[in-house]
């Protein structure tokens, strides 16, 4: 019997909850680790970056106004969707990097578990990172974490899937929206991730995926006046310092890891905390009535 002709996938950008080609119309020829053609993946431009930031800002408003429980449920849903797409992800990782089934499966395990882990953080940030402050004056004072807003993150080159997930999970768990940039070669992995995000009840724009050249896209995003944070984990050392300088122009919160990315290491809280602001509020308390005397 003749072999069936398959339907190949178009790998697009994921912006504002929709899968779209680059506004520039450019693509990159993506091959598997053996050089076989896989896809013409969309190549993100500066303007795609700009559009992604607009979408992220809008999405972040909706995301931050959801309850922490709801955010946790959505992130858990992402884990459910990813677990269900295990086979497809394993294949995409193997095509990309020639990984063994065991190693590719392990990466998917870790990615799903990272989503589960971060889903469990959403309603605990205030508990662990906030406080009621024992001030020495007749006031009730608390300090609570709040999301910083829109974060741009570059995913590490190796660990195409886990790099993306470990960049997005802590940012999103904190109530932020994220624009993720990953190299175009990983487009087929990114495409599956986009589909997972699109089926997870995530508000449009909370996560945006751009496949493109870091050196081309990131400087504009680092300078962008409506981006609050920058995660340079996936950026080469040379580019890091330059992007950090550019980001200083708008006093962005810049995260640079101190250690190389270790997929087996526990996620920790550094990236979670890097993109949280702390708000301290004071409210008078004092004595309930005159009988209590003066508070001062």
């Amino acid at each position, binding site marked *: 019997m003749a072999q069936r002709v398959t339907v190949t996938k178009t790998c697009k950008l994921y912006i504002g909850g929709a899968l779209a080609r680059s506004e520039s119309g450019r693509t990159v020829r993506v091959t598997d680790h053996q050089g076989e053609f896989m896809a013409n993946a969309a190549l993100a431009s500066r303007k795609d970056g700009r559009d992604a930031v607009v979408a992220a800002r809008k999405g972040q408003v909706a995301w931050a106004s959801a309850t*922490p*429980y709801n955010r*946790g*449920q959505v992130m*858990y849903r992402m884990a459910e969707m990813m677990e269900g797409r295990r086979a497809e992800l394993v294949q995409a990782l193997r095509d990309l990097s020639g990984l063994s089934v065991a190693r590719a499966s392990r990466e998917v395990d870790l990615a799903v*578990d990272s989503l*589960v*882990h971060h*889903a*469990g*953080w*959403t*309603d*605990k940030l*205030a*508990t*662990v990172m906030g406080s009621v402050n024992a001030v020495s004056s007749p006031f*009730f004072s608390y300090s609570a974490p709040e999301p910083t807003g829109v974060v741009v993150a570059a995913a590490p080159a190796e660990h195409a899937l886990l790099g993306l997930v470990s960049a997005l999970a802590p940012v999103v768990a904190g109530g932020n929206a994220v624009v993720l940039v990953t190299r175009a070669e990983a487009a087929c992995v990114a495409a599956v991730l986009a589909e997972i995000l699109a089926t997870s009840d995530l508000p449009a724009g909370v996560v945006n995926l751009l496949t493109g050249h870091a050196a081309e896209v990131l400087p504009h995003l680092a300078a962008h006046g409506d981006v609050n944070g920058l995660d340079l984990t996936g950026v080469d050392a040379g580019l890091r310092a330059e992007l950090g300088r550019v980001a200083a122009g708008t006093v962005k919160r810049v995260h640079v890891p101190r250690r190389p990315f270790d997929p087996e290491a526990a996620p920790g*809280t550094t990236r979670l905390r890097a993109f949280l602001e702390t708000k301290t509020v004071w*409210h*008078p*308390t*004092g*004595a*309930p*009535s005159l*009988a*209590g005397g003066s508070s001062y």
Partner: protein
Amino acid sequence: MIHLDYAAAPEAASLGRVRERYQMFLGGEFVDGHGPDLVSVNPSDETTLSTVSSASAEDVNTAVRLARTAYEDVWSRLSGLERGKYLFRIARGIAERSRELAVLESLDNGKPIKETRDFDVPAAAQYFFSYAGWADKLQHLGYGPSPSALGVAGQVIPWNFPLLMAAWKIAPALAAGNTVVIKPAETTSLSILVLAEIMADAGLPAGVVNVLPGAGDIGAALVGHPGIDKVAFTGSTAVGKRIQTELAGTGRRLTLELGGKGANIVFDDAAVDQAVEGVVNGIFFNQGQVCCAGSRLLVQESVAEELLDRLRARVATLRVGHALDKNTDVGAVNSRAQLDKITALTQSGVDEGAQRWVSPCPLPETGLYVAPTILTDASPSMRVSREEIFGPVLTTLTFRTPEEAIAKANNTPYGLSAGVWTDKGSRAMAVAGALRAGVVWNNTFNRFDPAAAFGGYGESGFGREGGPYGLAAYLDTDDEGVL
């Protein structure tokens, strides 16, 4: 003029999938116990709902042994993340079978479907979901990098929120790494046994949770069992005291969540219509069968008459009826014994000089119903001001100054909850600070969340459930004498 009657809107009882007989859940299996069968009655119409196989003292021994084995061989060897994933599955399972659980709970307990559907069951799912996320984050509690579980927890829960109390007990215990033997109330064993099914379907390893239906004697056997490392009890203060007495000197850890006589304090500058809602919710939610009920209304004298007029007008609109009618606001009380107790205590209030107002609402002809009742002109010395009625009966006292309100609110051996109604933020904060109650609700009432601690002062018990505090109760956090 149209009189709206809201044609009967019953949720189908069949959705509850009530079985003729329920079995214990022991070592991952549903098995017959060696105790006498319990009969579950539907309080809405006093018909028989089902029978439940109960445990004997020997079954308690077996359960504790199986829980210990499960702890040592399986549960304590799993990472926090893996434990958490079981709990996430259970949370999802509850959400998926939420309609079934809501109907079953309403049939078994008598509480309105509106409450089980919109509160009890979703809250139970949320507790499991929230604690699932703690399982791999214990190092963030402030008890060191790797706090360990206590071992096997013995838990006894009451009939007023059967499924939710099961969630409040089981979820943190498992998240912290313990295994559990739990005894539901003898009049309400059904929903927890469906929860057991959900846990089994989630693949929870055998013996991690064991559910033993039974009466007070089985509860006593469980909490007194030497093989238990930690006891958690929610129920009456009288039984709580007996348990504390028995455990004294044994070194076994104990948390108690007991009764209350919560004060709902309304100041003259309150948002009056919302205060009325808060008072109504405080005493008529769950038919007043809530440990943290706002069962004492403390109203500032200058606004008392008007508040009470509005309150009576509002209470008269509450619909008392069958639990499965979606428009029922107040359902049946849980048992005849409870109904008799409520009636007797209310009468004592009248006998001691309080004025009684009873809602003119119609009551169903069969079933265990008490019409919403408001007692006014009560004094602090009356039994109705001091003793927990555990029914839809509100005792009203007045005050003149904030100090007096606080003094009266605190004038009780209990200390579980209080409500404060004022538009002035500083007064809300100051009064909250002065009240000896484990939970203070400012301009609201009956708000619960797995992230927020809940528990009492004094004879309302000790220990907290919810939040990191609830988790700490199931961990070995004793660092005294350790460098």
